[in-house]
């Protein structure tokens, strides 16, 4: 009977997957992801693709907010930059979809870094308000720079095609999106084993101590904004190619709130948490809709109140999680694992 997980060699301590159980779970997850598209119908594939995009965005935001401690309410704006850059480069300049996606990531990283400059002077609450302003300014520019973005009208993006295959059908996009999720996950997990990631965590835990120990706050905070916005831009660009259409309504402050909810409910400062939170928040409205359909025979009026129930549940879930489990789903997951590992001697 063990009382905890202890590592006896450096190799083991540095490994990403440390226990046999973790390796088994990873293999099971990958196997599930590989089999899933052959079993699921279009509806579930669409949901899976939405989850994939949300995971990329949530990992991006978690790097900034969860790991570096810089609260951002500008997520929606940065996603808009990614989506519009990708859309415009493909629709107007005829770039291939992968080219415009990569370019969109770098453009978003640049804009994100620019709006990260106030973080050098402000923190906490004031930074949150500054990023809120960034969100409003970006959306205003998007809706008013008609020559570039088409203003409030939707921007139509041509189908992404590679080797004669249209990749934004639900089935094909699944492979693209989840491969990217895999790359992003490996990159993000490894980021926090490098000096850069360690510096981010040091800034979050105690910025003054970090700076005394030689962490250049100026450099690393902007770097955190750049890396985070890069991934957020990627999520935005993928949305543009997947949906064929970019409208500003998809990137309002509500989206910023949605992504913040994902990483808080999932678990701040945890990649697994980003996965769990993104999945939970993306599936929540779908589950409620299905529940509403199932209950329709008993309560015929449920259709008209469903949007309100969805919104109210969203708010309630945030409040309840913050009050009862502030460390999020990741903590619940850990508790479940611990319970079974130590069972039946849980004390």
């Amino acid at each position: 009977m063990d009382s905890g997980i202890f590592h006896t060699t450096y190799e083991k301590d540095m490994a990403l997957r440390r226990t046999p159980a973790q390796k088994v779970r990873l293999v099971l997850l990958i196997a599930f992801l590989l089999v899933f598209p052959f079993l699921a119908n279009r509806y579930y594939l669409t949901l899976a693709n939405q989850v994939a995009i949300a995971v990329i965005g949530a990992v991006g935001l978690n790097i900034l907010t969860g790991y570096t401690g810089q609260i951002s309410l500008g997520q929606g704006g940065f996603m808009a930059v990614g989506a519009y850059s990708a859309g415009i480069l493909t629709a107007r300049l005829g770039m291939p979809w992968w080219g415009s996606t990569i370019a969109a990531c770098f453009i978003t990283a640049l804009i994100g870094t620019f709006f990260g400059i106030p973080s050098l002077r402000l923190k906490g609450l004031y930074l949150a308000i500054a990023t809120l302003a960034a969100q409003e300014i970006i959306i205003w520019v998007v809706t008013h720079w008609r020559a570039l973005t088409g203003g409030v009208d939707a921007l139509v993006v041509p189908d992404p095609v590679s080797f004669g295959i249209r990749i934004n059908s639900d089935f094909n996009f699944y492979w693209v999106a989840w491969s990217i999720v895999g790359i992003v996950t490996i990159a993000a997990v490894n980021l926090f084993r490098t000096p850069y990631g360690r510096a981010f965590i040091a800034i979050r835990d105690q910025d003054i101590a970090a700076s005394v120990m030689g962490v250049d706050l100026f450099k690393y905070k902007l770097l955190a904004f750049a890396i985070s916005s890069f991934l957020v831009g990627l999520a935005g660009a993928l949305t543009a190619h997947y949906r064929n259409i970019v409208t500003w309504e998809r990137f309002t402050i509500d989206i910023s709130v949605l992504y913040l909810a994902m990483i808080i409910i999932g678990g701040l400062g945890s990649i697994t948490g980003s996965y769990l939170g993104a999945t939970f928040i993306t599936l929540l409205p779908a589950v409620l809709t299905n529940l509403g359909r199932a209950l329709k025979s008993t309560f015929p009026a449920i259709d008209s109140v469903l949007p309100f129930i969805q919104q109210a549940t969203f708010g309630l879930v945030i409040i309840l999680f913050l009050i009862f489990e502030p460390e999020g789903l990741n903590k619940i997951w850990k508790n479940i694992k611990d319970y079974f590992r130590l069972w039946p001697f849980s004390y």
Partner: protein
Amino acid sequence: MDLFIQLTLTGLTNGAILAMAALGFVLIFKASDVINFAQGEFLLIGAYVTFAMLAQLGLHWTLGLLLTLGVAVALGVAVERLVLRPMIGEPIISVIMVTIGLSSLLKALVSAIWGNQPKAFPPFIPSQPVKILGATVGEDRLWAIVIAIFMLGIFSVFFRRSREGIAMRAVADDQQAALSMGISVKKIFAWAWSIAAATAAIGGALVANIVGVGPELAGFGLRVFPVVILGGLDSIPGAIIGGVVIGLLEAYTGGYIGQGLNQVLPFIVLILILMIRPYGLFGQEIIERV
């Protein structure tokens, strides 16, 4: 010149309403260091409850307003007790997020009860246009200015003279010291939230009188941020002056430049103020800088 006077009047009246929403916001921040993202929803609820009292129940406006204030106070106390008190001592992001969750919940409640369609509001303040110096402005808009000034007066007296007001200032200054002097910090927080909800309700009733009720009234929640940052997050006069300045700024840019610039300029001002003078015009200079 006529345009100038017209814009000034519009700006002043819009500013007065913004100031009313900002007052409650500042009050909560002053007492408990909480940024309330649900302030717009408080305004929304104030407007809808007034609408229910006057239009749906057909009460006289004095009684209706009093009942609305009662509902607002109850809401403030309930929110403080159920949602904010468990958050004491939690990191800033949790506190911000819990008020965002609250705003989503309240908005959904309002839509579930009253629907999403804008509704006409039975005016309890006459809204006939009045001519001043060649400009026309609705009478209810002028009342907004009067009420804002009146509220500022009440708040000043409250904070200087009343027991609760002084206790609130003590709590804002140092919670531990206040506790050791026998002040109930919990009670003060409940006071702050209920007064904030009540001022927002008055603001909401006024806006409803001017433009009618609809879910978009919650938008005031975001428009408050430039106001409070400009005036200083913890300054009551700052909220009023910030409201007027932002209101005028919006009116002038809207009238002279147009292009929807009036929607974004407040946020540009916000970022500039944050970079140059984060504590605002009248705020206390105790801000954590990096």
